[in-house]
């Protein structure tokens, strides 16, 4: 199956073949998007097991409802819409994720990682994202900060900065107006900056 992931076939063709019961096309669609969808779900729900389960549920729903996919949006945004809706609903139900208070237990990371992150965020430093990605503890701080955003703000940040969707695609996935995406993203980044600064104090 892994080699199938490299086969580049237009989504519309795969969707049509999948509609006609072509299991190979279905498999290609899964392989093509499973990592991206899993990653977005994981960044929103912050739990590996839940993310795997939600990704599985997403694809099952996608395949089951593929006959109803009208093609008004791309398959990519349609599938992500299902994934994000499932994940946000799950987060609301479980109540596990949300804007949690900033307590001292989150400040237990070692001084080096905090200093490195502070330096990165400081006005004078030159941005070096590769250095951030290489530091596991630093990433952990960043992820924990992200998790302190509320679900909707976290979703919009993940879709923009991790998945790399443009505003129109985010609006389509979340089912909101373009202006809502702009304001939500603006507040999310502002809050995230504040959270990071508090965590690094």
């Amino acid at each position, binding site marked *: 199956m892994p080699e199938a992931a490299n086969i580049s076939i237009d989504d519309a063709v795969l969707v049509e073949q999948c509609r006609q019961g072509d299991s190979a096309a279905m498999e290609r669609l899964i392989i093509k998007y499973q990592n991206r969808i899993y990653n977005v779900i994981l960044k929103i729900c912050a739990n*590996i097991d839940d993310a795997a389960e939600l990704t*599985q549920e997403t694809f099952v729903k996608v395949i089951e409802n593929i006959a109803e996919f009208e093609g008004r949006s791309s398959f990519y945004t349609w599938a992500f819409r299902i994934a994000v809706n499932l994940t946000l609903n799950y987060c609301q139900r479980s109540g596990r994720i949300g804007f949690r208070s900033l307590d001292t237990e989150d400040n237990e990371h070692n001084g080096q990682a905090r200093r490195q992150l502070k330096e990165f965020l400081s006005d004078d430093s030159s941005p070096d994202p590769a250095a951030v990605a290489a530091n596991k503890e630093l990433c952990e701080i*960043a992820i924990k900060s992200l998790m302190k955003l509320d679900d909707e703000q976290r979703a919009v940040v993940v879709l923009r*900065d991790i998945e790399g969707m443009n*505003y129109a695609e985010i609006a389509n996935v979340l089912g909101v107006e373009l202006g809502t995406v*702009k304001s939500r993203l603006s507040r999310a980044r502002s809050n995230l900056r504040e959270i990071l600064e508090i965590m690094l104090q």
Partner: protein
Amino acid sequence: MKENPNIEAYHSDRHIEELLNSFVDGELTQREQVEIQRLISHDARIARRLRELQKCKMLVGALPSTEAPAELAEEIKTSLQRKALLVQPAYGGQRLRERAGARHLLVRKVLAAAAMIGLVTVLGAVIYTIVAPESVPPATGFACRLELKTGDLASVDAVIRRSIEDNGLTYSSPRSRGDERKYALTCSQEDLNLLLADLENIWTGLDSTALIVGTEVFDTVTSKQVAEVVADLVTPPRPRLTSKEEIKEPVSPAKDKVQMHLTIVLSGSE
């Protein structure tokens, strides 16, 4: 740099914040980009905020991507297959169960209907046995015996036989002896009346007459009296009026349909 404490300034800041985010994300038009670049070059605060947003974006974007579990695709396929297996046979099974249930229900309905018909038949028979003899007298069963004695047996016998035959009746002659003739007839009351009318002439040659109905004996009866007695006995008594309500005629068979069993016994000497 001045702070903007009023609401208009706040909204303006929010608008600028959104524009800066859109600038960072490359979502501005060419004209908007030029405008933002102009703002940045003239306002150090805005320039600093832009760098903060860029670093925030870079930080999130730099987070390592996590690959899906290797077995995820297989699990999705298995889940889809399991669902398909669960749905289709369950649906088919349900239909089969529905059909079997319908058959079972039909059999039960038929058996119940048969049992009901049987019960109604038995009840009907019981009710008929109890009620019918009272409300519907049997069409048969009126028997009488007319005993005639004469000193001119042969002549009277000949007249009786001819009258019977003329009226198209049939008879049998059980246990006739030398000085006795018997005619066993079965006819309607109307036929009996016609016969009695024909036999009226022989009455003058008879020595004695008797009509026996059950245990009652009517002696020295004329042919007319025989007809009257028979008519009275065949017709049931009319019900008494005990209230203003309309009394229906009792259910009785038509008189002419009552089968009369008349035995004429003629005895005497030649």
